[in-house]
């Protein structure tokens, strides 16, 4: 039995359907992420799990028990808010001990658990400080300690890294992964930052306009998006309008208007004449003049139009014969050799026959 089951949940605000008949099940100990652009309903789901909002239809079950009649304070679910929501008139220790006080823990137990929780987030020396004396990262850790101190079944995290700067965010990502592994509590994480979702999660649900588009492990989501939206939302990707010429169980033969034919990996349900999009990641696109590129099954002529040096990689933007733009990404592993091609150079771009995915319309 899954720890948390969301069954056909719908939530409307007036005419706006924030959550549209969503079903999800989340296993115990999982780091599960709800990923999507703002307004996709991910925060509404979080608020319904926490009990701040109720579904208009459907059920939310925890350990098989419907949560409908349970107020927020009675749910074994804790939330880390985007704003951290620390109590400004209480010290770090009082903040973290608050759930223990509400649960009427004995003084001994409170002292012990408070000590453990503060140690877990490396804030033992900040116990007597007030929230306004802390940095963003420290506030974040207080909020985490406060959420975990009472050993909830689920910790909900609402864009908790949103307010941190890039460097600190990366550090906190690693801390979050370690913390989740150590405490073994199920994390449900809400974010619009796909990089964060990929780095942290065991599984990700990609949401769009109140619906779940795809639920998968990060690597599968990245490699095998099931829709154009998911392909485009997760990472960078080249999208080419294509039509199926031939479909066998070994491969797909596609035609791209103004460009020619190409071979793609097979797709169940694809039939000749079917229209869709061929999606390929920039790092799967090879770029060259002759040699290695022309030995690939799929290669097309083009011209370099942009050149973006990013330090670790260089991105080339190439205009194909039909006017479409395609991005190729080359790692700069050899020092000093970043600019292999110049703007205006005629080149060929190609990719392996088993790279990329065809997406039905």
């Amino acid at each position: 039995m899954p720890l948390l089951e969301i069954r056909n949940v719908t939530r409307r605000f007036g005419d706006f359907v924030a959550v549209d008949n969503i079903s999800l099940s989340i296993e115990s100990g999982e780091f599960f992420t709800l990923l999507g652009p703002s307004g996709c309903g991910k925060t509404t789901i979080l608020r319904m799990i926490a009990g701040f909002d109720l579904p208009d239809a459907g059920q939310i079950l925890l350990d098989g028990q419907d949560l409908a009649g349970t107020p927020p304070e009675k749910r074994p679910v804790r939330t880390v808010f985007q704003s951290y929501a620390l109590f400004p008139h209480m010290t770090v220790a009082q903040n973290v001990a608050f759930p223990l006080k509400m649960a009427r823990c004995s003084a001994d137990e409170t002292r012990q658990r408070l000590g453990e929780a503060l140690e877990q987030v490396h804030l033992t020396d900040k116990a007597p400080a007030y929230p306004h004396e802390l940095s963003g990262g420290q506030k974040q850790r207080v909020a985490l300690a406060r959420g975990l101190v009472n050993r909830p079944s689920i910790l909900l995290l609402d864009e908790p890294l949103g307010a941190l700067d890039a460097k600190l965010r990366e550090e906190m990502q690693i801390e979050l992964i370690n913390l989740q592994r150590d405490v073994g509590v199920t994390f449900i994480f809400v974010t619009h930052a796909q990089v964060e979702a990929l780095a942290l999660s065991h599984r990700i649900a990609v949401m769009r306009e109140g619906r779940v588009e795809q639920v998968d492990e990060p690597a599968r989501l990245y490699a095998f998006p099931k829709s154009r939206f998911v392909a485009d939302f997760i990472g960078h990707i080249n999208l080419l309008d294509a039509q199926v010429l031939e479909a066998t169980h070994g491969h797909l033969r596609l035609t791209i208007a103004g460009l020619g034919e190409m071979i793609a990996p097979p797709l169940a349900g694809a039939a000749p004449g079917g229209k869709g999009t061929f999606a390929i990641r920039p790092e799967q696109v090879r770029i060259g003049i002759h040699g290695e590129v022309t030995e690939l099954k799929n290669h097309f002529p083009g011209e370099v139009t942009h050149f973006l040096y990013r330090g670790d990689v260089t991105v080339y933007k190439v205009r194909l014969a039909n006017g479409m733009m395609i991005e190729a990404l080359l790692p700069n592993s050899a020092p000093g050799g970043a600019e292999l091609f110049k703007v205006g150079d005629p080149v060929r771009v190609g990719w392996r026959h088993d790279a990329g995915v065809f997406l039905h319309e």
Partner: protein
Amino acid sequence: MRRGPWLWAAALAVYAFLYVPLAIVVVYSFNDSRLNAEWVGFTWHWYDVLLHDEDMLAAAGNSLFIALVSSLSATALGTMAGMAMHRYGMRVLAFMVLTPVAMPEILLGVSLLLFFIQVLNLTLGMISIMIAHITFSIGFVAVIVRARLAGIDESIFEAARDLGASPWETFRYITFPLILPGVIAGGLMAFTLSIDDFVITFFTAGVGVATLPLRIYSMIKIAVTPEVNAVSTLLLLTLTMIVLASRFAPDVLRGKT
């Protein structure tokens, strides 16, 4: 920024306009003369007269008692009104609570008088004065409490519930401590409004009960005696002490956390 001499002059003029009359009142309360015309010499005489003026002492006692009861009641009711206005965005409630703040005092005085006599059939006295004072103080407390709440991140209250606090515990441990500076400020405001109110009190006092402002008014109808200066000085001292107390209160009570 460069501050020219004209700016200083203007500032000085404004301060003089505000404080010279007060200073004169205080100085002449120590004047050993029946008239406020010229300085004769220093004396405590008028304070001695004041302390033996039974009517004046009774009026002061009434004023303090009314101010205390009405400010405490208005603080409790105004805090609830402020919270309701904030939480439910109640436009109608806000309008109704705030109207007495904006309404001309004379209008409020007359309408309360008619209400007490014709509708409630109440004998005018302490009770009617208190009800009147509570009526016009609630709005001030509510506005201050609501402003205080508006400055607090809403998710703090949700966090409290989320961490296991019942609605009552959320109020007791989170909401109340956070709005306390506003509640105290509103209470002090209600107290000072009540203790120096004249117009509304005049209409709702009836005969027999006098507050300090009413008593002072009836005295200066005859002549401005130095005794009035003395009582004014004491009133000024009391209110200054209230202001200073709120200025130097612990940080927690002033919302500086």
